């Protein structure tokens, strides 16, 4: 895969043999006078969970939404499965197999689990909704993800617990042959038991070979599930590598100062040299 070989050290510094599912190279994004991202490089691998950390305003959401197609970068390139792509809309992202679970989940409380999972992509038969086939498919997806705590997949989402809602939102994202799932603060506002459910679910996604990116403030969660960790600081990618190369202390330092132990930052960040 030529792009990766030519790409800056980000990929190789991670010690990965496989080619990344998605690579971002030199992504710049500004809103008016405000520069949100400066030459960001990021690699996401199939079968790996990448934890994206950063303080408020570091650019996590902008980066996420750039991948999800909600923003277009001003400069830089995105490669998906080695091919350069332009993700101009969330529909483009979906077509590639990129699904995003936003923090607010975007579930309609009054609809049941099946209806939410198929919202916008309903199956039709003779022009009418094919409820039975959708219900079977939804049940199937929930079973493979081992989301078994819901009493009935025909109950309205309003009646679910926070962890169950998150599970439904994730299941909704992965049931479309997704290859990459972006999770924005999946455990915020969840209790201990439900956080556990969601973290287990993330691990299952990884075991099924999906690439997962988890945006989180909660370092406990990040260290629990992440195989790789990437840290944004004021719009710059200041660290990116296998989770084993970090400890809590260093991640916090990267998040708050952009450097750790006197080291300025990992190669991935400085390589673009556009700053």
């Amino acid at each position, binding site marked *: 895969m030529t792009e990766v070989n030519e790409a800056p050290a980000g990929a190789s510094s991670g010690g990965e043999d496989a080619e990344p599912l998605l690579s971002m190279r030199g992504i710049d994004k500004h809103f008016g006078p405000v520069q949100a991202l400066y030459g960001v490089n990021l690699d996401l691998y199939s079968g790996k969970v990448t934890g994206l950390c950063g303080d408020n305003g570091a650019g996590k959401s902008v980066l996420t939404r750039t991948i999800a197609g909600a923003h277009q970068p001003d400069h830089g390139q995105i490669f998906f499965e080695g091919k350069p792509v332009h993700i101009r809309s969330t529909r483009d992202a979906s077509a590639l197999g990129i699904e995003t679970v936003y*923090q607010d989940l975007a579930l309609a409380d009054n609809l049941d689990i099946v209806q939410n999972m198929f919202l916008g992509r309903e199956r039709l038969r003779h022009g009418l909704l094919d409820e039975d086939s959708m219900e079977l498919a939804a049940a199937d997806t929930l079973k493979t993800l081992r989301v078994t705590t819901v009493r009935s997949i025909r109950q309205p989402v309003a009646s679910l617990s926070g962890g169950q809602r998150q599970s439904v939102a994730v299941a909704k994202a992965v049931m479309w042959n997704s290859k990459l799932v972006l999770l924005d603060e999946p455990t915020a506002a969840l209790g201990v038991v439900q956080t556990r459910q969601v973290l287990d679910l993330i691990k299952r996604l990884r075991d099924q070979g999906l690439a997962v990116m988890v945006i989180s403030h909660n370092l406990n969660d990040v260290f629990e599930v992440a195989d790789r960790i990437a840290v944004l600081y004021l719009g710059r990618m200041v660290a990116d590598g296998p989770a084993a190369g970090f400890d809590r202390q260093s991640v916090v330092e990267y998040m708050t100062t952009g450097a750790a132990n006197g080291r300025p930052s990992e190669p991935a960040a400085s390589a673009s040299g556009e700053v």
Partner: protein
Amino acid sequence: MAPDGEDPVTADPGQPPAETAHARRRQTEAEAVALVAAPDMSVADVPPELLAQTLGQYLRASWLRVRGGDSGVLPVLMAMVVVAVVFQIITPEHAFLRPSNLVYIFGLSTVYMVLAIAETLVLLIAEIDLSVGAVALIGGVIAFKLVQQPGADWPWLAAILAALVACGVFGALQGILSARLKIPSFIVTLGGFLLFSGILIVVLGGADGSVNLNTSDSNQAVIYDLVQGTITPVASWILLVVVVGGIGTALWLRAASRRRQGLVAPPKSVTAVRIVLVAIVGAAVVAVCTVNRGTSLKSVQGLPWVIPIVLVVAAVWTLVLERTRFGRYLYAIGGNPEAARRAGVSLAGMRTWAFALCSATAGLGGILLGSFFYGEYSTNTADPGQLVLYTVAAAVIGGVSLFGGRGKALHGVLGGLLIGGIAYGVSLLNLGSLSTPLQYILPGGVLLAAVLIDVLSRRGSTGSVTRV
């Protein structure tokens, strides 16, 4: 560094946690024991037919759900019983429940039923259409004018369709204003209400204008007969058998098909009880309508045409709301517009269509109203203000939520019947000068009570009242 504090799209970070934290904790505890015992709290949230395996379980689960705050159509059914009993007692000669009066109420109610079903389309997406009464009346007048002879002399079907299309255009205009320019629908349709009320007087031909149907003309007689015409008693009973048979077969086959695919289906006994209930209600209506309610000179008996017409309207809208993408998206927008938007639903487009279809359906209600008033439209019979009050009241009393996302065509039917019963009951009383104010006060009071139930049941459930 990121603009405007991180995220407009991932917005509402505080939303789920704050309100539902308590409920969620409650539920986690419930879940922990759910598999063993099935405590009230969690059962109450799940539609009973999903878990029950026997009739007994079903009834118990339904009762728990009602106690849990989701009372469904129970309030409107109870209110109907109360209204029937009270008016039967207080009307002179205890005349309220006489077959002739009941049939009159059916006729009057069908207008409110159709209008309430129309309003439901807009209420579902958490909007409101206050112009529905005025638009309906204009629709009725247009249809009446188009069949006049001498005059336009259109075939009745063409006249009705033209009226519905015209109403649909009025609705679409208001929908576009509201959806594209993001003006609250309350304001747009309030303006529409006044505007169309004025236009109504113009098309009627002045403040004391009127338009009549000539029943000796067979073309005009069709529109006159929509409410006034009847089918023979024998045909009424045959129709009942066909309708109940159709509904029963559909329910039964549906349950059987789900069971075959290994999906949860209501127990057979529940399906059977439902079919029997439909048959009983239908038989009662037909029995009431087939009693001779005429005079000794001229016998009048049989089912009014309008009852099957309203059934068809309700059936079509039930199908559209529950089994098409359009309907699903209406519910989704009412439940969470942001979720619908991210799912690729065009919010502005859906809103415009909802208003257009609301107004078109309301136009049919307006035509029925003219037929109900013996084929005469005048500024006396046509009061758009009262009509819209009754319409919204009927929908909300029937169980349609003002906050969007909850409601069915059936709710409009039940609410319309209740409002029709109250409206006619008041007019039966010998109240003299009190009669007219009570025509407003009673439905207004019932509307407030219904809204109260709506708000309280929302608060009681884990769902949020936000995102209006």
